[in-house]
């Protein structure tokens, strides 16, 4: 059985899949990948099920090695990656030959990068999932020498494919639904919330991300007395200081802060991937509009396999030929520099 060997990993590296459903009533939130679109993209690149587990890398990756030839795919926040020093194109599939070292450094945009392997990572499931959930103490702990077994690779068997990723690394507009506690805020606050420009602040992890704005005060006297209630990923909690905190996949199952609304699932990758300073606006939509938006997002995910392109194209059509990789998805990486000097 092929294994991905973790020689080193930053603390932000964890195993993630689509999460564990069915345990909300016992206090365990679904969890799973912070950027679920990146899971779908990796699955498309390797021609496998989007439920396959992958390594999620917050901020930076680590050093990895394959015990046998492994197909890999790199998605989500682009990171500096190389095999034995040869740079790899992000948002693409590659061959990681047995015994060679894969180095994944810091991200150049966004926050969460993903390393997928052919057959998916098949550690033992806990409560129906392989996702790490720090708050619940669930999931495989990664340390130097951890060997992650690959499932049977029944995918497309090919590598050297790429995808143009959907833009989601620099903030943007978040579509939001009204919820049971929207009425705790005044009409002026709701209007102000929708017109204000917010910036992602430094508070943030897999549980949620903080936003700030000096254009609106969302403090709610009524909200301080609300009973603890069910909370879900996407909920925009207004914390004691009147600033929004958007809940993400590892959020708790109940919470006592008032929530002004809930961001649509297809917009959550934007929240997770944003870096401090990224600009956001909120836009309220109706359930009918939300259904159209989510149906379109689901259709785009289903169409991902059709959007694959080979990494090697006709050189005549490539304007940035020298920046492009030419062999097996690899390049010496310094072609541009050498050309200039």
């Amino acid at each position, binding site marked *: 059985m092929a294994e991905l060997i973790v020689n080193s990993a930053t603390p932000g590296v964890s195993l993630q899949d689509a999460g564990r459903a069915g345990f909300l*009533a016992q206090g*365990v939130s679904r969890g799973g990948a912070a950027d679920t679109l990146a899971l779908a993209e990796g699955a498309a690149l390797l021609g496998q099920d989007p439920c396959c587990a992958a390594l999620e890398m917050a901020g930076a990756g680590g050093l990895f090695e394959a015990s046998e030839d492994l197909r890999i795919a790199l998605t989500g926040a682009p990171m500096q990656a190389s095999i034995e020093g040869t740079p790899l194109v992000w948002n693409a599939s590659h061959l990681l030959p047995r015994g060679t070292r894969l180095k994944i450094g810091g991200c150049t945009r966004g926050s969460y990068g993903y390393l997928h392997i052919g057959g998916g990572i098949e550690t033992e499931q806990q409560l129906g999932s392989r996702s790490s959930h720090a708050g619940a*103490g669930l999931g495989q702990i990664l340390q130097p020498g951890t060997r992650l077994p690959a499932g049977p690779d029944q995918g497309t068997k090919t590598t050297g494919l790429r995808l143009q990723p959907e833009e989601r690394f620099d903030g943007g507009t978040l579509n939001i639904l009204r*919820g*049971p506690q929207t009425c705790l805020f005044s009409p002026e606050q709701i209007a102000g919330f929708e017109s204000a420009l917010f910036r992602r602040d430094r508070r943030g992890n897999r549980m949620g991300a903080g936003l700030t704005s000096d254009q609106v005060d969302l403090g709610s006297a009524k909200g301080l007395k609300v*009973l603890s209630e069910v909370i*879900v990923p996407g909920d925009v909690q207004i914390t004691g200081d009147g600033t929004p905190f958007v809940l993400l996949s590892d959020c708790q199952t*109940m919470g006592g802060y008032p929530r002004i609304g809930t961001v649509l699932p297809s917009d959550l990758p934007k929240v997770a991937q944003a870096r401090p300073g990224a600009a956001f606006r909120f836009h309220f939509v109706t359930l009918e509009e939300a259904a159209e938006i989510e*149906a379109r997002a*689901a259709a785009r995910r289903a169409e991902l396999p059709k959007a694959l392109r080979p990494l090697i194209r006709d050189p005549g059509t490539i304007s940035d030929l020298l920046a492009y990789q030419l062999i097996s998805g690899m390049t010496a990486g310094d072609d541009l520099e050498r050309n200039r000097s």
Partner: protein
Amino acid sequence: MALSPDWPRISALGFDGFLVSFGEHLTEAANRAALAFRDALERESWPSARESSASLVSAYLRFDPLRQGHAEIRALLQDLLARQDWYQAPLPRGRRLWHVPAVFGDTAAPQLGEAAAAAGFTPQEAIASLTERPVRIQTIGFAPGQPYLGELAPEWDIPRQTELTRQIPAGALAVAIRQLVLFPMPTPTGWRHVAQTAFQLFRPLGQDPFLLRPGDEIRFEPLEEQALPRLQQDPDGGARFEVIR
């Protein structure tokens, strides 16, 4: 409590969920209704339903709106609500009464004295008040397997501490706002630590990772502090249950 014009209330909670709320404040009737309605949701077989849960006063349903639209699910929820007076509904069947040994006060639970004083009790009166009758698991949440228990006597309507306790141990029983919380794992908290159990509530590697169900009842049995090391030998911490008939 009869059906009022405002309650129960159905609201969308995110794109893929509905929350059915039975009141603004925690009451016995609203909690009973939430538990019973969630139990009824679990027995329906709507093709788009994914999972359900209950908070103190609400039942939550997560579903796939691309498979069954919001209007259809809302109508199904309304039909289910109209089927009976949920505030009068019996609690879910198969509930259990747990007997859980607990050491009150001493070094094991250092805040019994101040919590008792805040409630206007002596420590002995506080122990009697917290152990004389069973308390219901009103909901499980926040952390895996963490029960909220109540409702306690009105004297226990004491606020949470403003300063957090840095780390309350697993198995701790803590009190505030007429409720008890039994902690499955060490955590910072504003609740006051009044007793210590050796009951492991969440066993991720076990056959049955979660022991308690919403609606179960727990009666705490006071023990001398010397008994704690012996209880800690057993993952159940000496707890046992009988099915409520």
